[in-house]
């Protein structure tokens, strides 16, 4: 029986060698999270940054803020956002362009990914219709396969808020995809709400 993430993290405070087990467990998933949003070589670097940040701040983990897995994704998100912000600062010509929401940068990367995958226009339109925070939450659940509680920990919001936002995001996506599926599906979608 393997120890829970929380026990491993707690043990790693006094025995740092224990921390490696978390890398083995969650390293691939964190890398995938990053690689869906930046180039793979950049994801490689950000992965190391993420884990070092997690290691150096492991004593500050607070279980009340969510599961360890959600906390780790939160560290990865923090690292990713800092990277995207820095990239934008380096490329944007005006202060106004540099100060916009960083999640817009993430959306640009996600949109490019959808483009490369020839995603349906309705799928993209549905995602574009979401607020940046709702869209990020949706992707955390869909792509990273986090639970709503874990996704809430990533965004630093209460679990109930995450569930509410997911419900709202799902409804928007359902409407767009039902439109694509045809009038019958659209009616079915509307009647189920």
């Amino acid at each position, binding site marked *: 029986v393997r120890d829970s993430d929380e026990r491993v993290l707690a043990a790693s405070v006094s025995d740092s060698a224990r921390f490696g087990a978390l890398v083995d467990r969650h390293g691939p998933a964190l890398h995938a999270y990053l*690689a869906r949003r930046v180039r*793979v070589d950049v994801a490689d670097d950000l992965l190391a940054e993420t884990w070092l940040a997690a290691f150096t701040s492991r004593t500050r983990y607070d279980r009340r803020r969510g599961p360890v897995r959600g906390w780790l994704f939160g560290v990865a998100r923090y690292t990713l956002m800092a990277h995207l912000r820095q990239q934008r600062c380096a490329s944007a010509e005006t202060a106004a362009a540099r100060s916009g929401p960083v999640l817009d940068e993430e959306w640009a990367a996600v949109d490019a990914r959808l483009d490369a995958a020839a995603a349906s226009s309705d799928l993209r339109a549905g*995602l574009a219709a979401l607020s940046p925070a709702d869209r990020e939450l949706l992707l955390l659940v869909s792509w990273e396969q986090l639970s709503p509680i874990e996704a809430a920990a990533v965004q630093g919001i209460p679990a109930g808020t995450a569930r509410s936002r997911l419900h709202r995001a799902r409804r928007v996506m359902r409407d767009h995809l039902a439109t694509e599926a045809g009038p019958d599906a659209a009616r079915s979608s509307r009647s189920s709400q």
Partner: protein
Amino acid sequence: MTRPRVFDTSRAAWEPLASLRDVPPVEEEVLAGVHAVIGRAAAVERAAGTTPRPVRRRSPRHRTWLAAGALAATITAAAAVVASPWSVQTTAPDVVATGTGPLPEGGPGTAVGSCAYEYNLSALDERAFAFDATVTAIDSGGLFGTNQVTFQVHEWFRGGTEPVVTLDMIPPVEPGDAVSDSRQLTSPSYTVGTRLLVSGEFPQEETSLQEATVWGCGFTRYYDPTTADAWRTALD
């Protein structure tokens, strides 16, 4: 003939999205590199007898080291000063926490510079917020190992009006501290009572100080009247 999609409202509405989640698996050497980084940090921790300071942003020029994968573990300390601030344990200079004293020069190309931007008044003018304030409280419960630092603001140069603000800041360096992030060397030490000139960037929301990033590298520095005048003029 294309088969029409059967829309089942009982299934997750994002299922079509989930089908687009595939990415190449992480390479073994990348994970080995992570283990090496953690191993070095653990060694630093053991040698220092304390938990290393948390890491904040690095410049892109420091990102090349991981390509060497596990070889990074064999980099000599001298080379690592430039190659990776993580792999180095340096000792803080005798920085005083009384609110005075020079800051080491940061910026590209310097030994202590993992700074993306060199401090000058023109670069300062691009920061989203700036103020003159005195530290009134320090709480270690900030995001990812940072401190939550509360300021009594004497003057806002840009980006706010609140008389009291609390921001996440990288922990201060104290004389003899083990430093795991070279940017700590380009940030002022501080304690309750230290008067600082602080600047930085807002997070995702354009004007929110919550989770704002306080910039080091000279963009946050000890207060003195002359510098405050220069900030006031530059940020006007």
